[in-house]
């Protein structure tokens, strides 16, 4: 048996914001009619988290559900629980028009922690990161330099970023560069 490894094997960088690759996380792309009662129930039963509204992310313990588009959710669970979750979703949504796919190994996930975490994202993405415009509970899919990425805040000083695994090194280098000591702007401090 081969054992799964994350793209950068937990690479870390201690800048003025700490950047780390968060290792393996179970991720399931779930598409279908997000307004259907069956979908709401399935998501809640499987993750314990409520189905998120537009551009929101809901957390429940180590699980989370993020709103990706009007017909797509990203369900996050511990890596080892993916197959079980997938089976539960498929059972709960039987008869519905839906898609549930395991994309865990197609993604990389990073954590940014520190009081200036917002600033690192603001340097790389065309997004207003002021606390009045972006807050924990929201998710934003956007462009991070040359790649597509999505991020959300788990607290006011911690941000999680996901991108495709194929561009994990590029994303890590970007974040690392933006978090380099001496590069502080202090705009959100």
């Amino acid at each position: 048996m081969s054992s799964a490894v994350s793209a950068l094997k937990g690479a870390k960088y201690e800048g003025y914001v700490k950047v780390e690759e968060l290792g393996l996380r179970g991720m399931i792309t779930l598409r279908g009619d997000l307004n259907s009662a069956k979908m709401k129930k399935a998501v809640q039963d499987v993750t314990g988290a409520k189905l998120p509204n537009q551009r929101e992310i809901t957390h429940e313990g180590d699980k989370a559900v993020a709103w990706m588009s009007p017909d797509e959710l990203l369900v996050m669970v511990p890596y080892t629980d993916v197959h079980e979750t997938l089976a539960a979703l498929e059972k709960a949504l039987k008869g519905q028009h839906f898609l549930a796919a395991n994309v865990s190994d197609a993604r990389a996930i990073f954590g940014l922690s520190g009081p200036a975490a917002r600033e690192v994202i603001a340097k790389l993405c065309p997004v207003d990161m002021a606390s009045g415009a972006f807050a924990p509970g929201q998710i934003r899919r956007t462009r991070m330099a040359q790649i597509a990425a999505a991020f959300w805040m788990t607290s006011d000083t911690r941000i999680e970023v996901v991108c495709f695994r194929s561009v994990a090194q590029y994303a890590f280098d970007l974040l690392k560069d933006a978090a380099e000591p001496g590069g502080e702007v202090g705009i959100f401090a």
Partner: protein
Amino acid sequence: MLILECPCCGVVGEETEFAGGGEAHLKRFGPGSSDDQFHTYLFAKENPKGVHFERWRHANGCGKWFLAARNTVTLEVYGTYSAQTYEPTQEIKDKISAKVPGWSWRGFS
């Protein structure tokens, strides 16, 4: 730089988050159509100096297509609306009329 609002996910983003998809409200002519119709569909595009309607895709966001009404001279965006429509909303048309009296674009005015 254009600032567009994606009507599918509500994000107000700048141009680089989106990808342009050419002219909006095209009627497709495929197999079974005459050479003339197919030629017109493929090549005869509007290229106005002023009011224009375009398709855009929220490529680095929700991935959905939508339509935008904008001005190619001033880069003003009059509004964005669902791609599943045959013409712009009256609200957008009114907004254009207020700024560019007497405008017309293909069958719209």
